[in-house]
């Protein structure tokens, strides 16, 4: 068959959002690939220049529907660096807990999407069922299920509700059993292994050079995690390990995310144990000095999230720059895709965990 360009997207079941993967295929083998994004571009960074600092927090939630807590937290962390605000210890513990709960929720959504990509609706429904528990916990905490508006500059909005620790412990105990179920359904399935192993190879050098971050980078065997190597909140106070896989393929990226969910449970348990009563919020300044800059980077569920902010002398930012992890990872997609078959596209792109809200901003 002659070579032809194939537009996978913007309306395509593989895309999980609104983007377009243009691939050149020879028969079913891909010889070129070109991701096209921008369908969801809202001018987020420009809008924030006309909003007050506090008004930006709920907007930051909307950057990614799957991991909204980590984005509003990243914004608050950046503003704290800009304004040099020190957050009370209890707020830091609470933030660490909700961030890890958010990571589990986001990874569960990724696993569900991977299930439909590979044609197993069961693997879609089981993680979604367990994600509901984490959404319930979040709802109990801050009243919202997806866009939380919970972190504040200088702390968090409210203290934890009654029975917070009991509920979290119960959910985690239940969830860890279920995690074994997923592994029985995926890892022990020969077909799953056949689909995921030895596709989407991304070497460690390429991954570092192309700016791939987060679980996808660790799947390529690079031992780097912002939570450990540039600690924020309470990650340097708890005992946990960074999950790294050496095989550099789609299966390694899958394994890293699965292990991270276990590790997140571990972190949450420790945080719950060590959380002490105290203040949850300090009052931040209302304005930021003109020309002063601040930045922060965190380990988003999808990679390294980064924000860079410049003060304007009033209560609005002069410039707020967002670095989205998937924005860079998707630019590395051709490296992972070329040479494989069309049928491997869902496995490869599914293992990357796309989120278009943050990519297009």
């Amino acid at each position, binding site marked *: 068959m002659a070579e032809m360009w194939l537009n996978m997207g913007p309306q395509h079941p593989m895309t999980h959002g609104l983007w377009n993967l243009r691939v050149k295929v020879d028969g079913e083998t891909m010889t070129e690939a070109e991701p096209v994004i921008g369908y969801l571009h809202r001018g987020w960074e420009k809008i924030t220049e006309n909003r007050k600092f506090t008004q930006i927090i709920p907007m930051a939630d909307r950057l990614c529907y799957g991991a909204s807590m980590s984005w509003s937290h990243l914004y608050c962390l950046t503003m704290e660096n800009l304004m040099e605000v020190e957050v009370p210890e209890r707020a830091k513990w609470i933030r660490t807990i909700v961030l890890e709960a958010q990571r589990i929720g986001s990874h569960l959504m990724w696993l569900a999407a991977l299930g439909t990509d590979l044609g197993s609706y069961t693997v879609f429904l089981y993680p979604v069922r367990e994600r509901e528990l984490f959404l319930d916990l979040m709802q109990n905490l801050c009243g919202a299920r997806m866009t939380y508006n919970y972190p504040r500059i200088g702390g968090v909005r409210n203290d934890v509700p009654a029975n917070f620790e009991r509920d979290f412990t119960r959910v985690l105990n239940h969830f860890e059993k279920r995690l074994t179920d997923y592994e029985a359904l995926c890892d022990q399935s020969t077909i799953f292994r056949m689909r995921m192993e030895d596709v989407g190879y991304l070497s460690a050098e390429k991954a*570092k050079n192309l*700016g791939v971050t987060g679980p996808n980078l660790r799947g390529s065997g690079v031992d780097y995690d912002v939570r*450990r190597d540039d*600690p924020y909140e309470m990650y340097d106070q708890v005992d946990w390990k960074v999950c790294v896989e050496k095989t550099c393929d789609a299966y390694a990226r899958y394994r890293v995310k699965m292990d991270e969910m276990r590790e997140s449970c571990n972190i949450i348990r420790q945080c719950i144990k060590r959380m002490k009563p105290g203040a949850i919020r300090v009052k931040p300044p209302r304005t930021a000095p003109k020309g002063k800059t601040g930045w922060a980077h965190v380990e988003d569920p999808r990679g390294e999230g980064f924000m860079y902010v410049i003060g304007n002398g009033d209560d609005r930012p002069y410039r707020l720059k967002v*670095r989205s992890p998937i924005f860079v990872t998707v630019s590395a997609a051709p490296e992972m895709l070329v040479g494989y078959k069309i049928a491997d596209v869902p496995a490869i792109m599914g293992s990357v965990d796309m989120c278009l809200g943050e990519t297009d901003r």
Partner: protein
Amino acid sequence: MERIGLAPGGKTGEVLAQDIAQKFPQLVTITKATHNRLYAKVDKAALVPLCSYMKDNLDFEHVTCVGGVDWLEEKKMQVVYHITSYANKVTAELVVDLPRDQPEVDSITPLWGGANWHERETWDMFGIVFVGHPKLERLLNPAGTEVFPFRKDFVSGRRV
């Protein structure tokens, strides 16, 4: 509890800052350096030599971010690079000032592929030209857009 952030055999930000200051005495100004942070103002002529040096000799493997800033009153543009070293666990912030009427800077995409889309987006939004970039085309805006929407003289909400 001991600080986990420091790599065992790595160099701290202060050491790296001294190294860079010795290598590029005139064109690079180190504004601040802590154990895991490095802030520098870089002349645009020295950007690519500095980055090559950082990549080859100081183990900076990863471009975290490349972003533009439009300083309308000062009549200048800025490109802000954040470059991370996985080995040393140091993040460097390099700021390059450009004249606003002719914003041009050499591309660092040949060094780090991760800067590719960041530079493309910065051109898309600010019109800062990255010389040597492989594909400087519209990324987030539709092809054929004639304005650079993130510049400060672009009025938000106006019809393009």
